[in-house]
């Protein structure tokens, strides 16, 4: 059996990949996927921690985070689609009406 610590290390790596991706990539859709990756890293952490602590709470929390991620998809994709309709691009570099 693989020790839960390794899963948590993997989750930390996934979270970092997501966070860096969000900061580096310029396409709104890809940035959005990076956020989902971060949330899934959290889920993996919770499952591993729940297993390590022999506690059900961590595994239950995962369901809540899944639901929140789904709600974010609903609003996020709607915003991205509406931007794409207005400007025919999903690159955040084009979104620079406001500065200062």
């Amino acid at each position: 059996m693989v020790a839960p610590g390794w899963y948590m290390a993997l989750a930390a790596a996934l979270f970092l990949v997501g966070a860096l991706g969000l900061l580096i990539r310029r396409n709104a859709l890809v940035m959005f996927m990076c956020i989902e990756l971060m949330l899934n890293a959290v889920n993996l952490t919770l499952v591993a921690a729940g297993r390590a602590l022999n506690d059900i709470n961590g595994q239950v929390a995962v369901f809540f985070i899944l639901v929140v991620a789904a709600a974010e998809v609903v609003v996020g994709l709607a915003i991205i689609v509406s931007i794409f309709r207005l400007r025919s691009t999903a690159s955040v570099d084009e979104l620079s009406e406001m500065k200062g």
Partner: protein
Amino acid sequence: MPEINWLAIFPELTLALGAAAVLLVEVQWKPRASTLGWLAGWIVLLAAVFTVFQWVWAGDQLAAESTGRLVTFSGMFLVDGMAVYGRLALLGILGLGLAGAHGLYEALGRRAAEAIAITLLAAAGFSIMLSSNNLVLTFLGLEVGSIALYVLAGLTRERKGSDEAALKYFLLGSFASAMFVYGAALLYAGTGQFEILAIRDHLAAVIVARPAVIFIGLGLMLVGLGFKVSAAPFHTWAPDVYQGAPAGIVGYMAAIAKIGGFITLARIFVTGVIEYHATWAPVMAAIAALSMLIGSVVALVQTDVRRMLAYSGIAHAGFAMTGIIGGEIEGVLFYVVAYAVQLIGGFAVITAVSGPEGSASDLSEYRGLWRRNPGLAAGFALLLFGMAGIPLTSGFIAKFGVFSDVWATQPWLVILGVLTSVVTLAFYLRITVIMYMEGEEGDPIPARASTRWVVWIAVGLTILWGVIPGTLLSFVADAFAL
């Protein structure tokens, strides 16, 4: 069988069911936007009545138990003075926000019902967040509130500023939420608890073998909540969102995010992990100092009133955070409410001047405002003085409160705070000078009755709490007596 006390969540239930009712009424009768607005107003009043009832009822019950708080829903949900105070503040701001957004709702036409429902849900989310004892529930409340705010930022999505504001707020806000929940997960991994009170007891009783996991978790939660209250260096979304989102709703968005964020910050850090005070206080002090500096200095060079208020909001986040650093809560509770009222009043003026849907508010629009609408100009000037913290306004009492909380431990922060307050005064005065000393005669600017009410209520509260601070301070004190 878990103990379930429905009375504890009546205010949130009222808001959520009320949002559904607004949508159903729209489907069935298609009334005018102002009718829906009145319906929402009655829902808010009902929720406020329930909250006051809770205050009285919980007061009796808690006096008997003498634990200071009622924990229900198997430890998920708290009713204590801080929760009741925060809820009443949110409901008050919600009422003012609905009135201030009246013009926006009318301009939205048939979409007004959705906008009103989401306005109600945002307050319900933050209300759950600040009454939660469980970090997962805190996250759920945070997301209910935040997702509603992303939608509100994009209400006038056919305008280029609004859709840009919505996307920026959404991407950075979700990033912050992910940070927060990862922090909560690490805190769970480190302590085995989600419940804030249980974490406090655990940390007090046990010497943690590997505190690093907990420290990283706390840091991530601080970053996540720092984003929500727009503290530097996590403030980059604030100016764009304040500028791009429809003017009618920005004040509300900013105000409830600040109230929810700061009370939750106080709950987690002061109630929950006070054991590690020596570790988190310096980090928070650095964030507060940076917020004050960046907010006040960058605001000086802005030419858009909304961006200026956004940067001033960043400075205010720094001021309010100094209240938490001392490990006290009274100062910050007073501060966020006083500031939220000023903010929503200020944005009501901006709504009148630049139109409820507008996506920019250049300083030049305010030239000679006192000739074009003397009442608005006077109200705006008084609110700006309140934000600057001139004596006899609530801003002064609020700043005095947070600074005196931290004076004993971090005097340098107080000195920096006073200096940056002087800097912020410069740009508040600049707007006032532009309103009163520049510009020629122009067309009068009409303001709707609802906007005038919001401005004058905000001005009235700012002066009332400045001259007789006891009117709000006694509530804050009660929040602790409970």
